């Protein structure tokens, strides 16, 4: 095997891809529905929310931080944007602007607290999550909104195929948004100066500070980015389920953390890739989809997700240990 290829095969992403391909192969043989375009569109749309959130969380975790408040942020953005949309005909740009702005402001608030309070990001975002969520539920009394504007319910879609039964296959709002978000995140991390700073801050904040990077500024940026993406994701989710519930999103934070972590991102910061995160989200999505298609009761899908998480984190831990042993041996010689 050529040298670069061998190195590629040893990356976490390559191994994830192998697992995913193996799963896909099994499903391909076992069920005819898996490899249909309809299924692909369904899976992509259903997992767009998790995907968008995981892109934002990836950036936060690379800096060595974490955010558990994004689901609460999304709930606030969703409720506010669509309540206003119901009262005034603001259209897509208006809804987008409101959700994005609310998400951004709440995210920046997290960034300010992380910078100024001498405690970990975990604690700060747990606190802000409770504040955002508590205030939202107090003001709304936990009431759902089922009647959304027609133009919102209709969504945005580009139909590329209509089969004989009239079922439409379309590149919809969810799929477009999740693709754009992943592309933007990749550009931010890999093609900008700021991206290098984000990795540097996560790898060693002391060193990054001494080199002259503004750690505080980077923190504001990543938490603001996470918040803004939470605002966007909230619209994606509302359009997908065609309703707004202030209680539906909170509690799904750890699903997103799991997807990012399965993608090979280290919680101590400094490492992680967009590709890995996409593969992490894909792995969980295919697992859930496959179990349903195979006729396994959906009650067991969470258990299998749990086993996958445990398997992935143990594998990563063993890998890290192997690297450390190799490094120590190398150092001694």
């Amino acid at each position, binding site marked *: 095997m050529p040298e670069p290829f061998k190195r590629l095969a040893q990356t976490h992403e390559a191994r994830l891809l192998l697992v995913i391909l193996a799963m896909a192969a099994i499903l391909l043989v076992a069920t005819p529905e898996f490899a249909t375009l309809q299924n692909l569109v369904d899976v992509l749309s259903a997992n767009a929310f998790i995907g968008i959130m995981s892109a934002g969380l990836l950036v936060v975790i690379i800096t060595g931080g974490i955010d558990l408040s994004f689901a609460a942020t999304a709930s606030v953005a969703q409720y506010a944007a669509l309540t206003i949309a119901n009262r005034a005909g603001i259209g897509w740009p208006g809804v987008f602007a409101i959700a994005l702005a609310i998400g951004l402001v709440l995210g920046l608030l997290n960034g300010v607290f992380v910078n100024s309070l001498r405690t970990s990001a975990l604690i700060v975002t747990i606190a802000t999550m*409770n*504040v955002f969520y508590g205030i939202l539920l107090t003001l709304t009394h936990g009431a759902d909104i089922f009647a959304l504007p027609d133009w919102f319910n209709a969504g945005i879609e580009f139909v590329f195929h209509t089969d004989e039964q009239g079922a439409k296959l379309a590149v919809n709002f969810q799929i477009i948004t999740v693709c754009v978000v992943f592309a933007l995140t990749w550009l931010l991390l890999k093609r900008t100066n700021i991206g290098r700073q984000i990795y540097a801050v996560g790898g060693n904040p002391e060193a990054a500070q001494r080199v002259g990077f503004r750690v505080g500024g980077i923190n504001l940026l990543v938490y603001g980015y996470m918040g803004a993406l939470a605002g966007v994701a909230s619209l994606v989710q509302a359009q997908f389920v065609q309703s707004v519930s202030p209680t539906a999103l909170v509690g799904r934070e750890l699903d997103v953390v799991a997807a990012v972590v399965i993608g090979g991102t280290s919680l101590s910061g400094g490492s992680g890739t967009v590709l890995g995160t996409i593969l992490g989200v894909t792995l969980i999505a295919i697992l859930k989809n496959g179990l349903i298609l195979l006729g396994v009761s959906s009650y*067991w899908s969470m258990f299998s997700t749990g086993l996958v998480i445990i398997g992935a984190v143990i594998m990563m831990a063993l890998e890290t240990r192997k690297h450390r042993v190799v490094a120590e041996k190398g150092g001694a010689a």
Partner: protein
Amino acid sequence: MSQAQPAATGRLRDRLDATNLRLLCVLVPLILILGYLEGDKLFGVAGLRSMAFQLPELGLLALAMMIPMLSGGIDLSIISTANLCALSMACFMTTWLPAGHGAGGSLLLVGYALASLFLAALVGLVNGVMIAYLRVPPMLATLGSMTAVKGLLIGFTHGNVISGFPAPIVFIGQGTCFGIPVVLVLFLAVVLPLSVLINRTPLGRAVAMIGSNERATRYSGIDTRRSLLWVYLLSALLAAIAGIVMVARFNSANAAYGESYLLVAILAAVLGGVSPLGGFGKVSGVILSLLILQLLSTASILLGLSQFITLAMWGAILLLASGGIVLKGWLDNRMRNARPATPADLPMKTLDGRIP
């Protein structure tokens, strides 16, 4: 070493007492204000009793969270573990119901409780092995076991509620013993030995040392891996006792009960002075913070405020408490002015508190 030790422990004690002092500074005015606003309604027999019934659940969960946090880790699986214990008890009790409610039946119930505790301990053991021996970061290991255990419960129960238990269980949840709720007695019976274990025994000291610097602790001859195994075992057992309290109080069990307690348990522990990076924390601090949270919750219910505003207040208090510490540090720095920054001023450390 022997010369440095008294100074070091003295400083440690100062620091911990400062935390409790700060908590008392919040608690006492809170009691005075709420006492003025609501008087007998809150501090009468009924108000106190309702608080005493509610406190133990969150209290046990906060302590279950505190021990891993003291070691620099975290345990996200406590709610799942509590529900595992609650559901397995519920399952035992509804399938093999004791015929009589006499001594034999009660003995059977004790057996069921022990079996459920054993199941919960298995979760703790798996967590401990993953974290201590396989070196999986605590947050990830317990995230995995949390999902797997909850998934297992949903798989078996299909998300249904199991309810309707024999009288002795209902008595634990709703009965009183000399006017004191049984759950509170149970809570105290757990807290007092736990406090001794954490603050006075070699294991407790080892746990806090691991939280400060795991490698140094290992080099000083302590079996850190076995200590960490104990940490997660204890955490699971405390969560399981919380599960028994939950099953008794609600007279029902479900795979999704108490999920909102997870982050609140972290909040209570941190507010009680447990450092999220590990190494510092006292049971008494956590108890004080629990009292503050419970007072706020009961008072806002009595004032007719939404229960959700309590959540917001809890979060705000945590932010204010952290803000207060920062402000005090800043003022101290200004007072001393010329003093250069110490390592304590630089809070940078990895999230999972491991040695980088």
